[in-house]
């Protein structure tokens, strides 16, 4: 049947440097993150990587991480969502009101808020997918609509939320395993499991590629990548174990979402259809992709994640505020683009957006520790966004 004549194609595609050259974009942003961390480590006199600051970094930026996941999917499909900040304020307000005014148990209120996020997504998805109105317009409308509703609902502030609820974004996992010297045992265990999981999954993926004669990264690159990632996790684990609380609860939530959505984007029919539509819409239509339904689901999903972000944001503040979520949509969009999502759609990764979100987060935190004026912080973030996308586009042009 098949001609086995052709030689096993280049398993070791070129040299290490050639490989790095080809994957400049992917590693460029990771390298940028490292450079920024090191830079701030100097300018803040080592304060950036204080154990408690690492925990705070995650807790303060959890909303961007969560929203960026949904935003990558929206942008890959060729849309945009400007409403997420307002939706966060609206849902956060609902959640707090349910708990404080209607005595809904906080866990149930959290679940209802997330479901209501899905309902908001249905509303926007209907206009975008079935009425054919551009997402920019629908979500611009949503931005005003839900901000208005949030102010109507919340007034200014709804406070006095239970400790259990506030722990979502402020608390840590209990030190169930005791301490090893001054290091939290449970955190160490989680770190070890994470490193082992990473190593096993990477090695298995590489084996599967080799078995099927697919291109893999050169062996040294693979090893270096694995060792560096493992070292990074180990270091973060060490810092968190040393921090006041150990592992922040919200870190677990974010990590589970990242794993789940990476799987959805890579391994499910839904994820494939998103990439297919963003890459070439007419070709996707002619391949039988039900584009309306996929578009609808993308916005429902964005709504669900906005619900999660609303819970996290409200919990972090310990209160619902009508002005909450201001500029969250811009943070999420910027994180997606800094993380390598293509402006024209079709390309983008959840992990990329997470790196993008961390770059934004580290900038926020580093500049804050340095006592830089918030106005200047905003200006710096704007410049970083432009430079990241310019780098992407110039890099592509050079590649041609």
């Amino acid at each position, binding site marked *: 049947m098949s001609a086995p004549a052709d030689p096993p194609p280049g398993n070791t595609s070129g040299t290490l440097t050639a490989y790095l050259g080809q994957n400049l974009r992917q590693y460029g942003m990771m390298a940028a993150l490292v450079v920024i961390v090191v830079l701030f480590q100097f300018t803040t006199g080592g304060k950036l990587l204080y154990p408690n600051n690492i925990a705070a970094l995650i807790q303060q930026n959890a909303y961007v991480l969560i929203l960026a996941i949904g935003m990558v999917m929206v942008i890959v499909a060729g849309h945009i969502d400007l409403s997420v900040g307002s939706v966060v304020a609206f849902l956060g307000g609902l959640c707090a009101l349910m708990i404080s005014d209607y005595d809904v148990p906080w866990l149930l209120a959290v679940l209802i808020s997330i479901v209501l996020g899905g309902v908001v997504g249905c509303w926007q998805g209907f206009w975008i997918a079935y009425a054919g109105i551009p997402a920019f317009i629908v979500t611009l409308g949503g931005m005003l609509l839900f901000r208005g509703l949030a102010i109507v609902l919340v007034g200014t502030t709804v406070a006095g939320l239970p400790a259990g609820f506030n722990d979502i974004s402020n608390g840590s996992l209990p030190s169930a395993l005791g301490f090893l010297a001054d290091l939290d045992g449970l955190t160490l265990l989680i770190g070890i499991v994470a490193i082992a999981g990473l190593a096993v999954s990477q090695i298995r993926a590489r084996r599967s590629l080799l078995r*099927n004669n697919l291109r893999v990264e050169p062996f040294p690159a693979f090893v270096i990548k694995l060792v560096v990632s493992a070292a990074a996790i180990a270091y973060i684990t060490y810092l968190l174990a040393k921090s006041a609380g150990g592992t922040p609860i919200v870190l677990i939530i974010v990590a589970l979402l990242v794993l789940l959505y990476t799987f959805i984007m890579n391994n499910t029919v839904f994820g494939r259809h998103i990439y297919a539509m963003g890459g070439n819409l007419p070709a*996707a239509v002619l391949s039988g992709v039900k584009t309306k339904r996929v578009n609808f689901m993308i916005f429902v999903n964005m709504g669900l994640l906005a619900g999660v972000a609303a819970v996290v944001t409200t919990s972090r503040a310990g209160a619902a505020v009508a002005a909450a979520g201001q500029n969250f949509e811009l943070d999420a969009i910027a994180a997606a683009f800094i993380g390598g999502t293509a402006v024209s759609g079709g390309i983008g990764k959840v992990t990329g957006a997470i790196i993008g979100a961390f770059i934004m987060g580290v900038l926020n935190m580093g500049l804050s520790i340095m006592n830089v004026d918030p106005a200047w912080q905003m200006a710096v973030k704007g410049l970083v966004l432009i430079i990241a996308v310019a780098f992407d586009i110039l890099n592509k042009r050079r590649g041609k």
Partner: protein
Amino acid sequence: MTDTGPILEMRGITKTFPGVKALQDVTMTVARGEVHAVCGENGAGKSTLMKVLSGVYPHGSYDGDIVFEGDPCRFRSIRDSEERGIVIIHQELALSPYLSIAENIFLGNERSKRGVINWTATNTQAAGLLARVGLDEHPDTKIIDLGVGKQQLVEIAKALSKRVKLLILDEPTAALNGADSAHLLDLIRQLKEQGITSIIISHKLNEIAEIADTTTIIRDGRCIETLDMHGAEAVSEDRIIRSMVGRDLAHRFPEHTPKIGAEILRVEGWTVHHPIDRSRVVVDGAGLSVRAGEIVGLAGLMGAGRTELAMSIFGHSYGSSISGQLFLHGEPVTIRTVDAAIGHGIAYATEDRKHYGLNLIEDIKRNTSAAKLQRISRFGVVDAADEITAADRYRREMRTKAESVDVLTGKLSGGNQQKVVLSKWLFAEPEVLILDEPTRGIDVGAKYEIYEIVNRLADSGKAVLVISSELPELLGVCDRIYAMSQGRITGELPRAEATQEGLMRLMTMQKSGAPQ
């Protein structure tokens, strides 16, 4: 002295694209004040020649000389050629729909003083030009409110505003109805009396016989002959057809003995309207059938409605107000979405791989599986290993030249991209496979491989419908051939009886004057 010589001479024009010689040593002379027709099959090189002439392909990107009014010319852009009075009107009109007639006529050439538009001059001059082309519309009217025929006249008025000496019209009547066509031909005749020379590219041989003074025939990028239409010997349409197709079958086709079974697909009374202009009939009561193991051809010139017929069958992916009946295995079926069409075992491999066939920023394996992910997924989760195995199997079967199924399809050659498109549709396990221009833009060697694949598919019991502009290809590959013209099936010939001349006659058959 230039007043007596020819207005235009093109000498030894050769134009190559990567891998293809589009024009080879074409020489053509156009006399002052004549209507000069250029004829040839789709892809013969007519449009390329006109693009060379008008500076779309700048000087230096081709070999040969252009001499206009006695001066050698080196046009670097359309602007250069327009300055000399050469204006081309493309098949797809280049008007801005929301601007007025007057604004369009002077677009890029505004009547203005220091950047401020002089509206009085714009509108009065536009009105004058409209009168010249016989268009009774106010200059303020928006283009979008005009029919195609009137838009065509606006284009000509725009050309006149540039003091045109040589007017090039690419398929000017392709989208027009009978009355509009007649008016346009009349106008070309009037312009000729005013001393404007025209070059007209057309597939409508009756129109050429009516209006042209000279006809140049191009085939396979070469100038075959130039006929004097008013010469001693009358030039018949058959005479032109013979010259257009008369090449020896230099291509080679694999031997194939068909094993024909029962009918799989039948279409009856299929009528499709244009998706935007719903009053325009694009496919008109077409009927055809394809049997298992049979390769059926669909011949037709540009705009005959072949692709539109195929795409409307493929889950109504083209057109509006579609009527007619589809049968699969003799059973009537209704298929309104692409998803349903794929479910019913119909596949359509597009003529335009890059825009409608492949996701070029995605790799081979994901393109291969795109039309039927259900085959390798469970509960909505794709089995990556199955996907690689399947994609790799088709890569080997098709002999796609790529180091692995991880390669982005945007990096493949045309022939290999086409193989990925075929892989994608074979992966969908269809019973009916519609191949639209399966060898367009592919080199000869890869063409042969594609033909072999088509034969293998037919032998495995699939019904194959091949749409092609290359008549030798249809004659070499198909068991039976339908011809289309102006949306209708104008004839059906078994392979044994089909000739290029016979098909071309059916393909250029005009709608009779029967009441509509």
